[in-house]
């Protein structure tokens, strides 16, 4: 990710063009530049998400928000798919629900998500997703990778064991704070978020200490120091506020 990356998925859309389509047999209307996810939320249809966060650019990477579209065999992520006139979207077919569960299970196997000792226990988006999707057990093998904790920062710490690589921290740091302290290194299963050029967070010269990354993190990977088990409650009120003050016309942040 660099500063030159377009914030929106595309810039060539005409927001004054409108269209109507169907989500779960319900007629809905949309502007051309609104995603299926945004429209669903406007109409009180919940599509589970993980890497998506209102106010940040979309990645379409976690695949939790996949939906079925009638006439297409492909499952498409609702956060980055734009509706078309007369499209018929199905958000909760059996097929989609099944795949969502499996993807979530894969995330649980990838790192060491041990809720009982986690600062975010009870306030964790990953945990909530599991409850929402009814994931009570994981059928795949746990990978148990060895990951470290970086507690070199005076106020925050990062525990890679709980990271789901949603890259919200990278995006908020780059797009909202403008510091671009966070980035990603490695690829595939070995990729990991890093501060600056993989230096300890505490020695980072670009980090402003604003803590936005901590507040947007969906799990207990990024947390404030001094919090014990289940004490880390994320405060994201700044995000819609900043969006509004900067005059961007994004959807209000919702949850």
């Amino acid at each position, binding site marked *: 990710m*660099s500063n030159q990356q377009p914030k929106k998925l595309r810039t*060539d859309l005409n927001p004054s063009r409108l269209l109507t389509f169907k989500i779960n047999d319900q007629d809905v209307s949309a502007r051309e530049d609104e995603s299926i996810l945004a429209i669903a939320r406007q109409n009180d249809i919940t599509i589970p998400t993980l890497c998506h966060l209102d106010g940040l650019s979309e990645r*379409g*990477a976690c695949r939790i928000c996949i939906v079925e579209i009638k006439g297409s065999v492909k499952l498409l992520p609702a956060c980055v798919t734009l509706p078309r006139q007369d499209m018929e979207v199905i958000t909760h077919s059996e097929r989609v629900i099944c*795949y969502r569960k*499996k*993807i979530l299970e894969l995330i649980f196997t990838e790192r060491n998500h041990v809720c009982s000792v986690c600062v975010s226990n009870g306030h964790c988006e990953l945990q909530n997703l599991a409850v929402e999707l009814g994931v009570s057990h994981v059928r795949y093998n746990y990978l148990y990778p060895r990951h470290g904790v970086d507690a070199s920062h005076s106020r925050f710490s990062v525990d890679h064991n709980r990271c789901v690589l949603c890259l919200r921290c990278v995006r908020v740091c780059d797009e909202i704070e403008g510091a671009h302290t966070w980035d990603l290194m490695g690829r*595939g*299963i070995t990729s990991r978020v890093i501060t600056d050029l993989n230096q300890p967070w505490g020695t980072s010269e670009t980090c402003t200490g604003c803590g936005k990354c901590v507040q947007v993190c969906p799990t207990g990977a990024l947390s404030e120091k001094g919090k014990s088990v289940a004490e880390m409650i994320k405060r994201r009120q700044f995000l819609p506020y900043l969006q509004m003050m900067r005059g961007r016309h994004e959807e209000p942040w919702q949850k």
Partner: protein
Amino acid sequence: MTLNIEDLHQIANIEKDRIEGFQHRINVCVAAGCLSCGSNILKESLEKEVSRRGIDNWCKVRGVGCLGLCKAGPLIAMETSGTYYQGVTVADVTDILDSLGGSPVSRLVCPSDAPFFRRQSRLVSENCGRIDPERIEEYIAEGGYEGLYLALTEMTRQEVIEQVTTSGLRGRGGAGFPTGLKWRTVSKTTDVVKFVICNADEGDPGAFMDRSVLESDPHRVIEGMAVAGYATGASQGFIYVRAEYPLAVKRLRLALSQAERLGLLGNNIFNTTFSFNVKVRLGAGAFVCGEETALIASIEGRMGRPRPKPPFPAEYGLWEHPTLINNVETFATIPLIIRKGGAWLAGIGTEKSKGTKVFALAGRIVNTGLIEIPMGTSLRDIVFDIGGGIPDGKRFKAVQTGGPSGGCIPEQFLDMPVDYESLVQVGSIMGSGGMIVMDESSCMVDVARFFMEFCMSESCGKCVPCRVGTRQIHDLLCKITANQATPADLAMLEDLCDLMKNTSLCGLGQSAPNPVLTTLNYFRDEYLSHIHDKCCLAGACKPLKEVP
């Protein structure tokens, strides 16, 4: 400096006269395969010996592109007599030069009437092994850049696209998207800035077609790109070539500077209003950068990771402008289509797959190397006739096409014609054209494990199904080959493959389970034997006990 057609013909004639002035022409293959066997040293000593004997006014030693039969390198072709010599060493130089004008050195002769040479129809690789890739004049002497001239001066943009559409050419990079349709889509966009990208990020294990074309005939690709630029309205081209191909990069850069010097690239080409420039961009070793959106991100200087499609690059590509991305081989076919007409190419191949395709034969096969055959040739012909069969009297087991995204095709489909549709039908893909032949000593579970290991290490890690799925599948395959798996693991393997196929973000993740799925389909007994009998049917998985 701008050329016109007379200048072009003059260059061609001077070059032809120069070449034909030599009574004997010794063509030494200097493509990567033969170079690695020391063909450059061979060429030097041939040149030295020729000048020592003082016969350099009637005998010419030339470095040429790939002659095809890589396993027999270094290869030499005596152009006037049509004799091929294989496995030539420096010690053979005197014998070869002694034989000039007389009968060939029999111990070195490579039978050029063998099916390997006879059954091929070389279109894209017509100049490979015949011209010096480092001299633009030789390409022009073979009719090079005439297609560009024709397109620019005698055809409208629409007519060019019309010819490409008529030819029925489909993308040679793997998916087989109709090239004419892609060109038309880009030409229809209204943006004033458009780009043409040549995808030369060939990364499939066992595939080296694009490398060979770039090393043997780089100008052909440049000409094809310029025609594409004219047809779509783009004035800037990029060739994204992997840095692991230093020779291809060197020859491409040389070719670009030669073309610029002659005014075949640059402003007002052939005194028309069309301007086109090409830049080379090097990949940094990521397989996923062959995926078009990741490739674009890489050219833009960002992390080479795919993004969700749509929007497709044709409307929203490089720096947010409409972008045409084609494979090396696709561009290399274009000059022929312009010169000979689209209908001519449409006359070759099968109903839905037109033209020829270059394949790289590798693995357990006698004739390892590059072949170009018409679409629709049967696998049996490719493996047993052209490829010369399986060495050491072993039995054929399967052929793997399409690299890590393709599948393993078993013996029962040997008579199947090779075209886009048939390959998809049996669970594989055309891919870029790598063919890896396996004999009875290969364990198919191990083969699947190899490809999954490749995908795991090349997965970019952006989407969850591919990042974690490849690792999970790889672990399961390791477990199976180690005889520690249970029937439940097999069910989980199929479940994970299905998940990856349906939910991954880009083509890499969606197609990564193909080697596993096809082997599960056609060689299930090998999986079952590993699981139930705790033994490897092929005897390839070492730590296991033999079949009782």
